[in-house]
């Protein structure tokens, strides 16, 4: 993106302008080609980085994420063996670990951070982007739904949970024998898919596409 070169101009047409979302620098808006990266010259924030077929890829990854999330929820996650005893734990058990006593509200928080909010994001993304990928007009309420997707981004903590699992495994490694269940691998795949999906997204590009396709 380039800086606006004639500050004395009266800015009669605001359509050709873009303000950097993170530093407010006034830039000349232009159509960014696929595989090109448009960054702000002042703060170097990436403003647009469209990839070929990005929308289609995000939708496919979101579907994969949905399937993996269900697999991760209902298959055995970890298996622990000690002193002839066996214990399976699923992701749901982990979330419910706080359910007793004073820590009960944490169960809701955990469920939200690692299951519910990621789920809402995947579904909402498909809802917003599927019509875009087919070149159709956006569905009803696509704009507030995409705002929700963006607002939830910091609160969907799948990848952080995964690192937490690794730390916990090291902690109990001396205590018992641990077997990793299929849900564990589903979850690992889910983390990878999520990271990829978020890298394909460029917020400004989605907003511009939504605006361009809006039925008038």
């Amino acid at each position, binding site marked *: 993106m380039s*800086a*606006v070169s004639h*500050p004395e101009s009266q*800015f009669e047409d*605001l359509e050709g*302008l*873009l*303000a*950097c*979302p*993170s*530093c*407010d*620098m*006034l830039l000349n*808006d232009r159509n960014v080609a696929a595989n090109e990266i448009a960054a702000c*010259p*002042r*703060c170097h924030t990436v403003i647009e980085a469209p990839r070929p077929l990005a929308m289609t890829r995000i939708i496919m990854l979101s579907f994969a994420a949905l399937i993996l999330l269900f697999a991760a929820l209902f298959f055995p996650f970890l298996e622990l063996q000690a*002193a002839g*005893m066996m214990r399976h734990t699923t992701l749901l058990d*982990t*979330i*419910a*670990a*706080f359910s*007793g006593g*004073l*820590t009960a*509200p*944490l169960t809701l928080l*955990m469920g939200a*951070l*690692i299951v519910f909010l990621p789920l809402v994001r995947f579904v909402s993304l498909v809802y917003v982007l599927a019509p875009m990928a087919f070149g159709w007009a956006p569905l009803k309420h696509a*704009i*507030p739904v*995409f*705002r929700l997707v*963006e607002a939830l981004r*910091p*609160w969907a*903590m799948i990848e*952080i*949970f995964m*690192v*937490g*699992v690794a*730390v*916990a495994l*090291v*902690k*109990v490694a*001396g*205590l*018992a024998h*641990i077997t990793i269940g299929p849900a564990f691998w589903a979850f690992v795949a889910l983390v990878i898919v999520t990271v990829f999906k978020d890298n394909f997204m460029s917020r*400004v590009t989605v*907003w*511009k596409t939504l*605006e361009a396709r809006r039925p008038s």
Partner: protein
Amino acid sequence: MENARSQTPVLTAHEAGLIGCTSCGKVHRTGTDRCARCGATLHAPDGKSLQKVWAWLVAGLVVYVPANVYPMLRTTTLGQTTDNTIVGGALDLARHGDYGVALVVFIASIVIPIGKFAAIAYLALAVSRKVRMGPHARHITFVIVEFIGRWSMIDVFVVAILASLVTLDFAATIRPGIAAISFALSVAFTMISALSFDPRLIWDTKYR
């Protein structure tokens, strides 16, 4: 202007008498309330957001105190119950020789939270010109705080996973302690504090 260093002369939407959307970048005339493209609320880059930043930061600090005083984990082995605070847990790991994990826990639950409180407070003071810090340093601090804030939640997850794995069937039981709640709240409040920060203030140098 501070930006003489970089060649491009900088004109912000605010300086041009316009108002830029912080979520989609669309430029509007001053006086517009909602973005025509994405529906976000438009606001000028003034210091109003800082009140929210301070309020959530103080809330995060207040609940961080019980998170360290009360036990995070309650381990019962053969009828004997031991309470472990966050620091105690890290020390235990180190005693068992797991220096790597001890370090991860220590950094995630002590160094990062405290560093985050300090960084947000310093940033807020810097943009209100109470302390000196150049825009580039502020920008880097902000990017780091924003990226790292969520990762503190890892401690809460570790407690949950341990509690669900090690239960009554075994010689040992692990139950989450009350500190897990205040720690989770502290992380959430600090995240909200950082999210309330208007990044446009970081680059605003016109009163210098």
